[in-house]
């Protein structure tokens, strides 16, 4: 993908802000790609999980917070358990959903879940979908 870089964005406060929100140091990521290789939902994502880390490092807030990827992560923790640098991507994704919601980016909301599905699915699925998608 093509992105426009500028010194303003690279020096933006996004990395620090995320670290303050969720304790994750995105600068540790060196793009090995093990997170993306193990992700069960990666085929549906517009940004690979490792690209999310890279774009944050470059300060590209819009590209990250507008991506579908942020709303597709289900916190299965496969990436976290395999990351050689100890980056906890599911936690990072939670903080990105929080930022996207707070800053008014286009997002997937729990109200889009249809009623029939809610009646049919197990309670833990309903509660986790609502909590994760409204964070």
């Amino acid at each position, binding site marked *: 993908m093509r992105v426009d870089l500028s010194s303003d964005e690279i020096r933006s406060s996004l990395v620090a802000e995320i670290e303050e929100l969720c304790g994750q140091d995105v600068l540790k990521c060196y793009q090995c790609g093990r997170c993306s290789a193990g992700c069960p*939902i990666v085929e549906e994502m517009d940004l690979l999980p490792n690209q999310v880390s890279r774009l944050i490092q470059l300060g590209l807030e819009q590209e990250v917070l507008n991506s579908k990827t942020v709303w597709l992560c289900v916190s299965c923790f496969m990436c976290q*358990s395999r990351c050689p640098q100890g980056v906890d991507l599911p936690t990072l994704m939670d903080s990105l959903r929080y930022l996207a919601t707070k800053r008014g980016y286009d997002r997937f909301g729990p109200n889009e879940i249809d009623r029939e599905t809610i009646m049919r699915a197990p309670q833990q699925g309903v509660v986790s979908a609502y*909590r994760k998608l409204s964070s």
Partner: protein
Amino acid sequence: MEIPYYPGCTLKVKATALEQSTVAAFAALNVSLKELPRWTCCGAVYPLMGTRIAGLAAPIRILREAKLMGSDTMVTACAFCFNVLKRANRDIAADPLCKRRINAYLADDVRVDEATNEKIMQWPEYAGEDDVKVLHLLELLRDRVGFGKLSAAVKKPLRGLRVAPYYGCTLLRPKEIALDDPEQPVIMHDLLRSLGAEPVDFPFLNECCASFLSLAKPETALRPSYQIVSSAEAEGAQVLAVTCPLCYYNMESRQSEIREQYPDFKGMPVFYFTELLALALGVSLDQAIGWKDHTVEVRGLLESVGLRDRDK
């Protein structure tokens, strides 16, 4: 053996097959599961952003209830609850400030004692895993009952049944709370072996089934379940054994939707591991199997391995 038991919401509504077979199987093992007198939802997902501690209130209140029962252990049947409770338990034990904050938060609880009608406003401080240890049913079987002893208690060995043990995510990850090796778990394999069944290894045994994405994006979420079940089938399994009600929903209840999207999908019967446990321990078919939860026909298969009700 008597042990406090936290079933969680799903087992009382949609996963009655899991609850019913759990209670019957452990009764057959002379393990008395004492349901907590009061409990709420655990929150289903762990609050990952540590700065927002309100999400810890539900799990810690539940664990404090087990402490009030005078126990140092609490068992849970749901994989999501296990994950949330064990993480909360571990995190407050490791972080004194967090422990103080959540205890201060819960100190405001007021409850009316139903017997005496008196207000209860004093609560013991809850210290995390040093107070009450969280065990999943599988750990209870492995560490307290013992697979050797379990094997000796089997009345109807599931001989000849080839079962793919599906572990999913929340029992194995994050690794800090895993009940087994996150990449090469064996606990369900060992359980199945002690029941006389043949565990079938398959590469997708610890892959995510798409979890709650099946609610948010029902079509998108079919692919992982398709891959998992097909992989088990390719390795020669006849049935899939699961622990988690959401995995059950994605891989059992949605099999006809998977087939619509992937016409080559064969599908297979899916059981909660406790249903197989109860069957092997000689519990009657109607008590062991939650018939109404099985959309895929299972009776023929059970009969083929010699499991049928004598009175039918």
